[in-house]
C-alpha cells in the first residue's frame, strides 16, 4: 500500500524509534493504572530499550533512506543508535537506586530518558536539516526537564534554567545558520546542499552560515568558547542525567555535526577544518586546565568531558574516512569510561551524603574495593594509559591527525593528555591513600554492579582487542563517505 509516497518499508525501518515512542507512552500509562511501582516502570523502560536494540541489530548492513529521503538508515546511523541505546540502558540501570535515594517519582523520569534517546536516534538518522533539528529539540527539551528534575534542589533548578536559556539561545543561532544555508542552496536536504555547494563560489552569506552552524553545534558538543553551560549543568543535574547528558547528548551532537559538515558541506572542508582545528585546540586546553582546579567530582568530569570533545574534534578535523573512524571509535570508548566514572559518583549518593565532592572519594578502596578498582580503571582510561580503551581511542585520533598533516594538532593533544593525567590520578590518590570519609555504608545493588561490570568489560575489551571496534567503525564510516561521493556524482 502506498499513499503520499509512503510505504510499509518506511514504518518497518522506523521500528526502533516507534518502539521507543510506544515504550515511553506505556511507562506513563502504566504509572496511572498501577501507581508507585518504580520497579515495574524500570522493567518496561529497560525492556523497551532491549527490544528496540534487537530490532536495530536486524538492520545491520542496510543502506537506504526512508520517509521520502528524510531519514537515512545506514551503517553510520545504526552505529550511533547503538551508542544511544547502550548509554540509555546503562543510565537507567544507575538511575533506579539513585531515584530511590532522592525520593523523586520515577515514571516521568524514565519517560524523559526514553524521549531523549528517541530524539538522539533521529539526530543520527536525519539527512535533512528539518529532521535533524526536530531530533535535536526532542532530545534537548527532554534534557531541560531532566536537569531540573530534583525540584526542591536549588542547584538542580539553577542547572535547568541555565541549560534551558543557553540551549534555546544556541538553537536560535543554529537555526539562523540553517536558514542562511537554505538561502544559499535552496534546499534543506543534505545531499542537495552538497550538490549545490560543489560548484559554488564562496560568498559572504555562505561564510556567515558556516560560522553560525559551527557556533550552534559548538554549543551542543560543549566546545570552548561555547562551553560555559556545561560545568554548571553537569554539577546541578541529577548524577545519572549528567552521565547521559555527557555521553548520549554529546555523541548525538557529533553525529549531527558529522552529518551536516562532512555529508552536507563536504565542498567547504578546508574552511571548516580551520574553524574546528581552532576549536579543538582551545577546547582541549581550556577543558584540561580548568579541570585541574575543581574540587567537585561532577564539575571535574564536566571539564574532562569538554576536553574529550576536543580530542574527538581532532578526528573531525582530519575529515577523512580515517578521521571519522577515529571519532566514532572514540565515542564508543568514551561511553564506557565516562558512564563508568559517573556510575561510581552516583553510587556515593546516600541518604546522608551528597557524595559528589572529591573528598567524598576518600578511602573508597577501604569501603568498596571493587568500585575503587573500577574507578581506577576509568580514570586511567580517561587519561589515556594503555592497555585501556581510552589509549586506543587517542592513538587512533592522533594517528588520523598525523596522517592528514596536522602534526601540531596531535602534539597539542598529547600534551593535553599528559596534563589531564594530573587530575585523574588525583582522584586515585584520594581513593587509595586518604582516610575514609564520613557517611553511611556504600550499598552496591545488582543494578549498579551490572553497570560497572559492563563499563569495566567495555573499557578493558576495547583496550586489548580494539580491532572489534575499528572494523565496525571502518565499515560504517564508508557509508557517510559513500553518500558524499554519490551526491557529488549526481
Amino acid at each position, binding site marked *: 500500500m502506498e499513499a503520499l509516497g509512503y510505504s510499509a518499508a518506511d514504518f518497518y525501518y522506523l521500528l526502533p524509534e516507534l518502539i521507543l515512542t510506544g515504550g515511553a507512552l506505556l511507562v506513563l500509562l502504566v504509572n496511572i493504572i498501577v501507581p508507585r511501582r518504580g520497579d515495574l516502570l524500570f522493567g518496561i523502560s529497560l525492556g523497551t530499550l532491549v527490544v528496540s536494540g534487537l530490532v536495530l541489530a536486524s538492520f545491520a548492513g542496510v543502506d537506504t533512506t526512508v520517509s521520502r529521503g528524510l531519514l537515512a538508515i545506514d551503517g553510520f546511523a545504526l552505529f550511533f543508535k547503538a551508542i544511544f541505546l547502550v548509554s540509555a540502558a546503562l543510565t537507567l540501570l544507575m538511575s533506579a537506586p539513585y531515584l530511590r535515594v532522592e525520593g523523586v517519582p520515577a515514571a516521568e523520569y524514565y519517560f524523559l530518558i526514553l524521549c531523549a534517546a528517541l530524539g538522539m536516534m533521529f539526530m543520527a538518522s536525519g539527512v535533512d536539516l528539518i529532521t535533524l533539528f526536530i531530533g535535536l529539540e526532542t532530545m534537548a527539551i527532554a534534557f531541560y526537564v531532566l536537569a531540573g528534575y530534583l525540584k526542591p534542589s536549588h542547584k538542580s533548578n539553577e542547572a535547568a534554567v541555565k541549560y*534551558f*536559556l543557553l540551549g534555546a539561545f544556541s538553537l*536560535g543561532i543554529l537555526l539562523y545558520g540553517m536558514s542562511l544555508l537554505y538561502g544559499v542552496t535552496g534546499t*534543506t536536504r543534505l545531499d542537495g546542499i552538497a550538490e549545490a555547494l560543489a560548484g559554488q563560489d564562496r560568498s559572504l552569506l555562505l561564510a556567515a552560515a558556516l560560522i553560525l552552524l559551527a557556533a550552534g553545534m559548538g554549543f551542543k558538543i560543549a566546545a570552548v568558547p561555547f562551553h560555559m553551560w556545561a560545568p554548571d549543568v553537569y554539577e546541578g543535574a541529577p548524577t545519572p542525567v549528567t552521565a547521559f547528558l555527557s555521553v548520549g547528548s554529546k555523541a548525538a551532537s557529533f553525529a549531527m555535526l558529522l552529518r551536516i559538515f562532512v555529508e552536507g558541506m563536504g565542498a567547504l572542508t578546508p574552511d571548516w577544518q580551520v574553524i574546528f582545528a581552532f576549536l579543538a585546540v582551545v577546547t582541549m586546553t581550556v577543558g584540561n586546565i580548568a579541570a585541574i582546579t575543581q574540587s567537585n567530582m561532577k564539575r571535574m568530569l564536566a571539564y574532562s568531558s569538554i576536553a574529550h570533545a576536543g580530542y574527538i574534534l581532532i578526528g573531525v578535523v582530519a575529515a577523512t574516512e580515517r578521521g571519522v573512524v577515529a571519532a566514532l571509535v572514540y565515542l564508543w570508548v568514551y561511553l564506557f569510561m565516562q558512564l563508568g566514572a559517573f556510575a561510581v559518583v552516583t553510587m556515593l549518593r546516600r541518604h546522608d551524603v551528597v557524595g559528589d565532592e572529591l573528598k567524598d572519594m576518600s578511602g573508597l578502596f577501604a569501603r568498596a574495593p571493587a568500585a575503587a578498582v573500577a574507578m581506577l580503571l576509568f580514570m586511567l582510561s580517561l587519561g589515556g594509559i594503555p592497555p585501556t580503551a581510552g589509549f586506543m581511542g587517542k592513538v587512533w585520533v592522533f594517528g588520523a591527525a598525523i596522517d592528514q598533516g596536522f602534526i601540531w594538532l596531535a602534539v597539542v593533544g598529547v600534551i593535553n593528555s599528559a596534563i589531564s593525567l594530573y587530575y585523574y590520578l588525583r582522584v586515585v590518590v584520594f581513593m587509595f591513600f586518604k582516610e575514609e570519609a564520613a557517611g553511611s555504608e556504600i550499598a552496591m545493588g545488582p543494578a549498579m554492579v551490572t553497570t560497572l561490570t559492563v563499563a569495566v568489560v567495555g573499557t578493558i575489551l576495547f583496550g586489548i582487542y580494539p580491532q572489534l571496534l575499528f572494523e565496525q567503525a571502518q565499515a560504517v564510516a564508508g557509508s557517510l563517505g559513500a553518500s558524499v561521493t554519490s551526491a557529488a556524482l549526481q
Partner: protein
Amino acid sequence: MLEITPLHYSVLSAALFMIGVIGVLVRRNIIIIFMSIELILNAVNINLVALSDQLQNLIGQVFVVFVIAVAAAEAAVGLGIIIAFYRNKETVNIDEMSLMRW
C-alpha cells in the same frame, strides 16, 4: 515607490537577530532573556519565509511551521522551569544564579 523585496525582509531578519543576541547577552531578567530568544527564532522565521519567496520553493515555509511548533513546546517547558526556579528563589534575576561558579 520603493518596492519591498525579499532582501528587505532578510535585512529586517538580520536586525531582529542582532537585537535578540544583544538582548540575551546584556539583559539580566530571565523572562526578558527568554523573550530575546523568541526574537531570534522569529528572525529565523522571517528569513526563511523571505528566502522561500525569493527561491520560489516551499521548503522554507514548511521549516517555519516546525520552528513555530518547537518554539511553542520550548516556551511551555521553559516557563515551567522558570516557575520552579522562582518558587525556590523568589527571583528571576540571572545574577542570583550564583550557586555554581568556577
